[in-house]
């Protein structure tokens, strides 16, 4: 369709930050000789507008009258002559990709009383070569721009060719029913059919489907097969962890056992056994719910969005955030999201191109894309991102992990939902498009070199404002009690959302009512599309009109798709033609029990023999500069952590607000001091030694972080989020079984119920004849409810002359430590948790902190005592003197081990001298010692054996700690000694 083209650009006398950023990005991508880049914002407006209308609209809306100028090109006009030495790089959305700006342009046209015509957008970067440089080669620039200026999966990059037309009308939709005969196929044939169709069903599952339809005397229709594939996907059913496991334990002399339903007999067993009274709803809803106060509850959910983020980090991470927000919004009868938490695992940003396999994005671009994706979804939603961590390991190169979490608040009386027969099925929020077809099944396959090109249909693009409108509408409808049940459209789209709500009932769906982004979608595509920002509600008929009115007022599209029935069948029609008629019992209970072999085999590892270091200053600075430990301020500042005005403990702390915090503290009910403390724990590196150590340490670290910040370990719920390389390989699955046993045993001692969890079990990357497998990870997220947020702490030193008290025991546990990592070693002595000691430390420290004994507290984790003291010193801009000999230890340890051992269950506190006795009373039986004092000195001195073993200026520590991820070059401007 012919269109007007309007280019808007900042006048040359003003700075153009977008152009400047593009120049830096292109230079970083290897384009040399650029003098300047200027950015133009381009708009396409359908030719139906007159030139005067286009100019009037541009002046009023598209152009900033203070800064900008604009150029209008008539429909069909030739491209203007390029400027000398200048290439035009054009970035535009690919056909069918959501373009929210184009929709806003249409809205503004309407607001001005102009015809609401088709619109489109694009960007142009005018890249000018320096006069004395060789001209920039077009092909090289195009390739660099694809990586540096665009998301190639969703955006098209053109060189020296401006878009002149709007996307044409889509082709007609294939409305056929497409029966798929199975009866003639053997197991091999069925497996091939599943693989070719991207269904991710195995042979046993296909045989069960074949038998079911043979009994029904017909072939399944395509939509039915797709529905089964979505519903039975690993993502939706967790069929590996709920299946049967034959486990052989190499650490217990080859003892073997059969575990029926691993999840139920371990994780869920902990929760059942503990039976804590603050649990309101666990494992049955989108998120786990615990009591907050007499009226309200808080709910929490964490999940992963690894696959989409590996292919397209920005869109993948953004829609991950959007998805978990909808999970919480759809919890109970609607919870209001109050905070985001995000944890990432990447390959080190300096991995080097030679170590990045073909088909993988560079770790740095993955990290930048993921952070930008979280920022550009979380911030516009108005939900603060309050907490997180980032971990680095080479084996994440093909499979970065993106954990996204959200907390919500809801009245306890509205914590349970139940759809009823006769309820109307209402879809609200975004429209359905072809985005995200086969996402659920895609996440259940392994990635390989071609994934980037073959799986791009599974990538989803987010539109946070559409989700915000849906959230505003749902919150108002919840306040007015207008629905009986709600859930989000996540993996599997309508098929999963409606299929799950209808499980105990039945449903009749008229799919032609579903609002579409564009025409041309087959009914099965509409049914399983994972287009974002959609919720499904069960609405009593007498409340329907009011609900539709509220949605209209909130500018949120809402549509009746059908009715819940009591037929036990899921019937989907499109314009009167039946495309699916499934027995809900078979859909939800017909999945054959999966059986897997698992074997744990202890790894044969040794402790390294390293030369003794007499001066540990260099080692300390190396540890502070490790990617895992270093400052994450570059990330934190891009997230809004203040919106909603609930923040009482921020991600950064200290006199200059740049020190690390252990946990987030929120007071979500404005004006009340009752609060939530949120923390997490993960250390993938321990998994290379012993998965049990990794699992225990995740829980212990989450609890230490939480307690150090003021959380109550006796009023804490936890979440388990598994990311594993493979479960098909018995040895990898054996690691998972061992890790789970260790995690659950500790959770019983700590009395922390699991309230929600997720698993992502296929994280390996096949390339060039080798397979890269991630280290097994269980992220533990811990959430505590406390009476008064003014009883919480930060990590930064507060006053000179106060005492440093170390609680807990230090052992010879450098295995998997950052210290060993900086020496290129792994080691063998990974930290393990002494259950009773850990419990006493957590409870003792909490009692002391709640009683106001401590001025600051910091958990000891990666980098041990050395990193913790330096971090507290950076935050408080105060020095310290630490006597390593005073540390309570198990066995004799040298200074290096005292400084860097990562033994668990240790918390370092800053105490007023006069409160020592008090502290002792509260700590009870937890071992502790005064190991030094806070000083006015500009540095930290570590002493052992009567000698100084390290002396580090705070400014030097700060420089080492901030430099690795100072990606804008802004963090170190302020370093003053």
């Amino acid at each position: 369709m012919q269109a007007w083209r309007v280019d808007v650009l900042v006048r040359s006398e003003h700075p153009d930050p977008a152009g400047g950023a593009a120049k830096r990005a292109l230079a970083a991508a290897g384009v040399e000789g650029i003098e300047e880049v200027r950015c133009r914002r381009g708009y396409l407006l359908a030719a139906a507008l007159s030139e005067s209308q286009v100019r009037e609209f541009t002046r009023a809306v598209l152009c900033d009258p203070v800064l900008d100028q604009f150029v209008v090109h008539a429909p069909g006009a030739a491209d203007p002559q390029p400027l000398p030495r200048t290439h035009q790089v054009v970035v535009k959305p690919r056909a069918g990709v959501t373009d929210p700006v184009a929709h806003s342009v249409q809205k503004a046209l309407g607001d001005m009383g102009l015809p609401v015509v088709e619109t489109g957008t694009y960007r142009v970067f005018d890249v000018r070569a320096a006069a004395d440089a060789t001209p920039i080669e077009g092909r090289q620039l195009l390739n660099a721009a694809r990586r540096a200026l665009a998301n190639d999966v969703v955006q098209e990059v053109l060189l020296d060719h401006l878009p002149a037309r709007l996307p044409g009308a889509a082709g007609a939709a294939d409305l056929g029913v497409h029966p798929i005969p199975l009866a003639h196929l053997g197991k091999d044939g069925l497996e091939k059919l599943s693989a070719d169709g991207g269904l991710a069903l195995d042979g046993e599952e296909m045989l069960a489907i074949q038998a079911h339809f043979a009994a029904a005397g017909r072939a399944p229709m395509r939509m039915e097969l797709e529905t089964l594939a979505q519903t039975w996907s690993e993502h939706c059913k967790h069929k590996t962890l709920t299946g049967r496991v034959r486990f052989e334990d190499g650490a217990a002399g080859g003892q073997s056992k059969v575990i029926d339903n691993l999840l139920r007999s371990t994780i869920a067993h902990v929760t059942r056994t503990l039976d804590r009274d603050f649990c309101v709803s666990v494992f049955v809803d989108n998120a786990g719910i615990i009591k907050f106060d007499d009226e309200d509850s808080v709910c929490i959910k964490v999940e992963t969005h690894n696959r989409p983020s590996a292919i397209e980090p920005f869109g993948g991470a953004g829609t991950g955030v959007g998805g978990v927000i909808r999970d919480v919004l759809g919890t109970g009868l609607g919870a209001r999201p109050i905070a985001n938490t995000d944890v990432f695992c990447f390959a080190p940003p300096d991995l080097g191109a030679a170590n990045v396999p073909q088909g993988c994005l560079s770790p740095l671009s993955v990290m930048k894309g993921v952070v930008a994706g979280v920022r550009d979804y979380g911030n516009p939603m108005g939900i603060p991102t309050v907490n997180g961590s980032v971990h680095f390991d080479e084996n994440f190169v093909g499979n970065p992990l993106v954990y996204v979490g959200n907390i919500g608040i809801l009245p306890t009386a509205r914590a349970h939902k139940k759809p009823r027969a006769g309820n109307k099925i209402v879809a609200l929020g975004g429209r359905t498009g072809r985005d995200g077809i086969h996402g659920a099944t895609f996440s259940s396959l392994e990635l390989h070199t071609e994934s980037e090109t073959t799986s791009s249909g599974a990538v989803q693009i987010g539109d946070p404002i559409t989700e915000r409108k849906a959230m505003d509408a749902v919150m108002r409808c919840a306040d007015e009690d207008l629905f009986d049940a709600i859930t989000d459209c996540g993996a599997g789209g309508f098929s999963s959302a409606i299929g799950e709500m209808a499980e105990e009932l039945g449903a009749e769906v008229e799919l032609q009512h579903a609002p579409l982004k564009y025409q041309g979608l087959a009914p099965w595509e509409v049914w399983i599309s994972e287009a974002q920002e959609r919720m499904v509600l069960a609405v009593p008929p007498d409340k329907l009109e009011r609900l539709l009115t509220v949605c209209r007022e909130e500018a949120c599209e809402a549509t009746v798709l059908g009715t819940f029935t009591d037929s036990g069948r899921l019937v989907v029609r499109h314009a009167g033609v039946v495309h699916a008629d499934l027995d809900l019992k078979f859909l939800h209970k017909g999945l054959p029990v999966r059986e897997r072999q698992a074997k744990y085999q202890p790894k044969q590892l040794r402790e390294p023999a390293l030369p003794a270091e007499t001066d540990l200053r260099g080692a300390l600075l190396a540890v502070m500069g490790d990617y895992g430990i270093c400052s994450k301020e570059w990330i934190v500042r891009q997230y809004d952590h203040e919106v909603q005005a609930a923040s009482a403990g921020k991600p950064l702390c200290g006199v200059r607000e740049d020190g690390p915090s252990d946990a987030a503290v929120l007071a979500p009910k404005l004006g009340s001091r009752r609060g939530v403390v949120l923390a997490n724990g993960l250390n993938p590196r321990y998994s290379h030694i012993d998965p049990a150590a990794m699992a225990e340490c995740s829980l212990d670290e989450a609890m230490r972080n939480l307690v150090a910040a003021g959380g109550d370990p006796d009023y804490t719920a936890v979440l388990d989020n598994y990311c594993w390389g493979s479960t098909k390989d018995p040895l990898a699955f054996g690691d998972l079984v061992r890790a789970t046993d260790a995690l659950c045993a500790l959770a019983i001692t700590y009395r922390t119920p699991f309230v929600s969890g997720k698993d992502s079990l296929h994280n390996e990357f096949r390339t060039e004849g080798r397979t890269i497998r991630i280290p097994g990870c269980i992220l533990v997220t811990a959430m505590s409810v406390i009476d008064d947020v003014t009883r919480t702490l930060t990590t930064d030193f507060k006053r000179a002359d106060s005492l440093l008290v170390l609680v807990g025991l230090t052992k010879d546990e450098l295995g998997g430590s950052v210290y060993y990592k900086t020496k290129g070693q792994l080691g063998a002595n990974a930290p393990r948790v002494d259950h009773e000691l850990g419990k006493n430390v957590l409870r003792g420290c909490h009692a002391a902190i709640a009683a106001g004994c401590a001025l600051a507290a910091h958990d000891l984790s990666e980098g041990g005592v050395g990193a913790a003291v330096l971090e507290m010193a950076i935050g408080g801009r105060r020095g310290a003197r630490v006597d390593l000999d005073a540390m309570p230890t198990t066995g004799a340890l040298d200074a290096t081990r005292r400084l860097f051992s990562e033994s668990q269950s240790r918390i370092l506190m800053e105490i007023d001298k006069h409160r020592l006795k008090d502290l002792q009373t509260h700590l009870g039986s937890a071992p502790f010692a005064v190991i030094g004092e806070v000083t006015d000195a500009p540095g930290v001195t570590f002493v052992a054996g009567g000698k100084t073993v390290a002396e580090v200026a705070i400014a030097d520590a700060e420089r080492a700690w901030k430099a690795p991820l100072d990606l804008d070059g802004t963090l170190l401007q302020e370093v003053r000694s």
Partner: protein
Amino acid sequence: MSSPRALILRAPGINCERETHHAFARAGAAPEYVHVGQLLADPGQLDRFSILAVPGGFAYGDDISSGRVLAQELRAGLGERLLQFVDRGGLALGICNGFQVLVRLGLLPCTRHKLDEEVTLTHNLSNHYECRWVTLRTQKSRCVFLPEGLTLRWPAAHGEGRLMAKDKAMQQTLVDEGYAALLYVDAAGRPTEHYPDNPNGSPLAIAGLTNTSGRVLGMMPHPDRSYLPTHMPQWRRTLLEQGALPEDGDGMVVFREMVKAAKAEG
């Protein structure tokens, strides 16, 4: 005296309405949410309020540019009524995205009593969004309710906060003639153009503006996220040094003084 009624504007993408509502209620106003659709359907209801607040957020996704689409909608739907609202004694507050909306609307600085866009709020020099606490100094300004000479810490959280007038002379006029009510200052209390104390590179350190009559105030940093004592990033040090927390955080002064002025207006 009865509580002044405050209209808390809602719109798709506005997301700071709850805290703005609570801060006004805490200051003794009677806040009410009004969705932009409701307001435009019955523009006369504006006359029932003595305060209009446009909260922060990402109205309409900040598509095209920040605040642009909502400003256009309000201009088309309310236009001169907004000037009349202020002329007859109404007060208006725009925070962050709300400030961007008021600037695009021409309600700030409004030096010629016309809804013209005289200044803009554009991309931070860093070219990205950033959330950090900044220090502000209230100026001797036209603003009828904001006291001068206060040093305040509020969080800034924006990607488009660099306040640019058409030319340097106009930028200077904003400072010299009492339109620039709030400036970013450094640790020594001096107005600064330097990152990070000035997070966006605003020339002459301008963080907030008032209008000619001093009845409209807008600012990029958030008083609505700093009005409780536990909002303040250094509250633990305050507690240690003073033994107790103060009644208010630094942002509360805006709401208290605005409500006081609205009451005085009757």
